[in-house]
């Protein structure tokens, strides 16, 4: 696993990023980000910098607040504390829709596809903001409609081809096998032309060979599309295999940050996952 490791260097402020991203604006910067539900601090003082083309991992035991962080980043929840910057831009007060338009795309833990529509149409919906047209040109089939349909079709097939899914374009999304549905969600997110892709448990329910393909695809996204990827995952083989920087959470707080090898030997992380020596004694 160690052979995969990218050299991580300190970024001018606090965090570390891959060496190649040093001169660039970090794609995502969370500053004291937090949310309280009533008195419960679901996420508390979350600081993170993700480099422009970094693959970052967010791990932690169940209920640590990982998906809540994603929901904060995509503004499903408005943070009660702190702020986040996307490519250096302030995002306070933006809605889910607006934050997607400035470049944050995501997939969901429980797949959320548009099941009644075809694979191609699902991708076209992702392309929505990059197509011209409105109600009237669609209703009366004005020339704009045909132009935009043609562009949508070409671009959708191009994206599907990137993930070897072009032959499935006319299937209903709901009829796809599980692994393909996960891939389609990634394609749909990429169609919005993001600068950072958030993947919520992309390998959940996949067999080892599908996971292997997924890892290659994620690397391909970074290498060919030059965008950053941040993923939540419980499959440590995947996380340690492709993530360059890893952030570990427990009880809503960040307990460790670093490269895969640093994380593997971090006592706080081991304690969070396996419990301390004293804990196990009490339970027995």
């Amino acid at each position, binding site marked *: 696993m160690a052979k995969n490791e990218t050299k991580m260097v300190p970024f001018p402020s606090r965090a570390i990023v891959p060496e190649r991203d040093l001169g660039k604006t970090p794609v995502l910067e969370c500053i004291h980000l937090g949310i309280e539900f009533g008195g419960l601090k679901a996420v508390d003082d979350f600081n993170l910098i993700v480099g422009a083309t970094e693959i970052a991992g967010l791990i932690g035991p169940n209920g640590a607040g990982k998906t809540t962080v994603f929901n904060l980043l*995509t503004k*499903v929840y408005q943070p009660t504390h702190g702020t986040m910057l996307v490519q250096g831009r302030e995002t306070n007060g933006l*809605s*889910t*829709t*607006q934050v*997607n*338009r400035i470049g944050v*795309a*995501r997939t*969901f833990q429980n797949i*959320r*596809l*548009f*099941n*009644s*529509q*075809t694979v191609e*149409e699902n991708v*076209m*919906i*992702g392309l*929505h*903001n990059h*197509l011209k*047209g*409105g*109600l009237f040109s*669609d*209703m*009366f*089939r004005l020339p704009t*409609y045909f132009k*935009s*349909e043609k562009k*949508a079709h070409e671009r959708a097939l191009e994206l599907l081809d990137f993930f070897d899914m072009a032959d*499935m374009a*006319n*299937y*209903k999304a709901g*009829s*796809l*096998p599980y692994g*393909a549905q996960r891939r389609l969600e990634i394609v*749909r*997110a990429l*169609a*919005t032309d993001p600068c950072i892709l958030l993947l919520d448990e992309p390998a959940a329910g996949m067999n080892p060979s599908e996971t292997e393909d997924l890892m290659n695809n994620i690397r391909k996204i970074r290498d060919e599309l030059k965008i950053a990827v941040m993923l939540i995952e419980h499959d440590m083989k995947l996380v340690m295999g492709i993530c360059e920087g890893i952030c570990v959470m427990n009880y809503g707080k960040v307990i460790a940050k670093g490269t895969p090898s640093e994380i593997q030997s971090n006592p706080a992380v081991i304690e969070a996952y396996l419990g301390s020596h004293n804990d196990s004694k009490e339970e027995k």
Partner: protein
Amino acid sequence: MKKLKPTTRSNIFTYGALLIIFTVVYILNNGGVISNNISGLLIPICAYVCMSISLNLTVGILGELSLGHAGFMSVGAFSGVIAASALRNVTDNGTLQLIAAIAIGAVFAAIAGAIVGVPVLRLNGDYLAIVTLAFGEIIKNLLNNFYIGVDNSGLHFSMKDTASLNMDKGTVIVNGPMGAVGIPKVSTLIVGFILILICYAATANITNSRTGRAIKAIRDNRIAVESVGISVAKYKLMTFVTSAAMAGMAGALYALNYTTITPKKFDFNTSILILVFVVLGGIGNVRGGMIAATVLVVLPELLRAVKDYRMLMYAVVLILVMIFTNNRKARGLIIDPAKKLFGKLIPKRGKGGDANG
């Protein structure tokens, strides 16, 4: 030649079928073959078919429930009637009056739709059903108190009685609870049919476009739609206003087929009747809704033969249709032989299929 897309093919099939049906009905009607009872129903059928398409856009394609669609129909009907009556001084051409009435009906119904939609469609949940239900009642009661007349100096309006209109030898158009009176009876079957074509074409075109994909996506999964940067409220409002405008056009066509029309005609029962068209025809299935509207408007007339048992039979027929459309075994009795006959003509639903195989 390039192979046509399945959706294009099914649309061409529908336009063809509509044209043939209309030509046959038109010839039969002019030849006096159709009985007077049914002949008088032809324009209301056109209006109800449009209503069915309109509600299908909201309920079937957008996935929001509207329980006051008759309210938009009545807004269209009354504004259309006022427009047509006011135009009588300007032109004698009935068709021109009708077209102007339909256009004005659409505009006012769209405004009503926007007023209802702007605050409500920002919320998630069944609030639209509750608010449209109230809207239908409010519009009915408002129109019960409207007195509108026209004379040489223009339109006069009052909410008290006809005397307070202060008109100079003018005519009363809307007379409170008596409804609109002395309506120019200008609706024609041809305009009604064209209206059906326009409504159907608009709906079918929207469904297979950038806008339509976004609307259907909202129905499928709202959270995912927001995550790809599509504004849910905007598209919900857009669809609802379009749907209301179509209802307004249908209302104007409907009202100008009679000499008098009361606000009571567009009550909750009418809203539910329109919803029954949509549900019976299959939610989201526009063509099914059109057929259901035709059948359910004609049915009570056909059942006049059984006199007292008319509404009882009507209920039995409704239940039978529901059984035959939802029970697989029962459906097999009718649908399978029909598919064998018309299999090549009727495009398959659910293109593609299972990718596992």
